[in-house]
């Protein structure tokens, strides 16, 4: 089972929730993936010992000028405009290249070969509570996070886990979509403010478009207004947990202490949350089955 913890708005408590959920589940059965490759921070709470490292990147075209006739076919087929033919010469813009391979495939002279550029790295190792921890790190100044996230998801440095928790980057752009794709459930962490609501709407729309079951966690409960609750009600999104705005919680998080450690009363609440998610996934599976049966008959 794969649970993605996303939010829309940044700083709502994705990592707080993802870390505490991972710590609340019996040890030895959980993999934690920090998919926020532009600013990973879950390691601050779960303190993994990284024993495995791997460079990851993208295949970038390299042109053999001896063979190239500057016909322009490569520039024509590149939908990212990462390869141009100007004044009889081929120009490659590595930062724009998505590594799709179209230019190489379409070159009539076989003048292009692909060489892998490093965009970032993957790291993995054992963390607190027997958690298998892995994260991606995008290199500074690199604009494209998706290839690193995709390779983090496909990397299998650990034996199969019963549960995979993905800590998703903020926003609703491509890195978020990539981090959520393939998950069985999406936990949306928000705060009850106009900002929280604005981005929750976008994130909820994204999850709906991906046709995934989801639930909401209201963090910093007690501030703001009731509009997030009203939206969840309208959108049919269950509110699965509320974490109140308390100075005590903020202080221990700032010290690097996970919520379930500084406030052990949250342990059973996160275990209940996990059980709730399991039953929501099951209910969703039955709905899908029913819909399929209806389609067939």
């Amino acid at each position, binding site marked *: 089972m794969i649970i993605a913890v996303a939010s829309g708005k940044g700083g709502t408590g994705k990592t707080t929730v993802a870390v505490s959920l991972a710590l609340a589940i019996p040890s030895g059965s959980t993999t934690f993936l920090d998919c926020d490759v532009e600013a990973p921070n879950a390691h601050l709470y779960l303190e993994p010992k990284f024993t495995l490292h791997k*460079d*990851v*990147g993208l295949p970038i075209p390299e042109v053999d000028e001896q063979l190239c006739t500057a016909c322009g076919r490569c*520039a024509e087929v*590149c*939908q*990212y*405009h*990462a390869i*141009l*033919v*100007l*004044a009889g*010469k081929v*120009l490659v*813009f*590595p*930062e*724009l290249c998505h590594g799709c391979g179209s230019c190489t495939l379409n070159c009539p002279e076989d003048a292009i070969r692909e*060489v*892998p*550029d*490093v*965009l970032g790295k993957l790291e993995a190792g054992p963390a607190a509570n027997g958690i298998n921890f892995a994260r991606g790190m995008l*290199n500074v*100044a690199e604009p494209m996070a998706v290839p690193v996230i995709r390779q983090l998801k496909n990397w299998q440095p650990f034996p199969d886990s019963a549960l995979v928790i993905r800590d998703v980057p903020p926003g609703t752009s491509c890195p978020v979509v990539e981090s959520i794709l393939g998950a069985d459930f999406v936990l949306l962490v928000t705060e009850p403010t106009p900002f929280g609501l604005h981005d929750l709407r976008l994130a909820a729309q994204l999850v709906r478009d991906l046709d995934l079951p989801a639930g909401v966690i209201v963090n910093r409960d007690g501030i703001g207004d009731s509009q997030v609750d009203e939206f969840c009600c309208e959108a049919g999104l269950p509110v699965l947990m509320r974490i109140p705005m308390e100075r005590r919680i903020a202080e221990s998080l700032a010290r690097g202490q996970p919520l379930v450690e500084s406030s052990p009363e949250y342990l059973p609440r996160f275990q209940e949350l996990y059980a709730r998610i399991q039953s929501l996934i099951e209910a969703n599976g039955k709905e899908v089955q029913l819909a399929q049966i209806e389609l067939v008959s």
Partner: protein
Amino acid sequence: MKLAISAVEPHINSPFDARFGRCAFFIFVDTETHAWEASPNPALTSGGGAGTQAAQFIASQGAQAVISSSFGPNAYEALQAAGIKMYTALAGLVENIFGEFVSGELEEFSPPPDSGNNTWQGRHKRSRI
């Protein structure tokens, strides 16, 4: 010489568009005859790489110089490779900006100086797996 000017509307009296890659139109002006024609910028709705696409477009139209208000690092590299001179203007009508070009008032664009960590000089410095 054929000169390209980024514009909001498809005519010589159009307001100048400050963006190069994402301008709505290019007005191509013949600097000898002052004849002009407007073309929609194919890079306007591009998902990515608008700067390089717009550079390739004006190169394919035979432009030898271009006026916009600024150029990004990719567009700059592409325009340089194509041998297209870049000039900068601030705002106004395309016709007036063309007049300023003719009277030699416009400055040639120069990339920002190396600050050690800016994106102009920091690009293309990847290692290979």
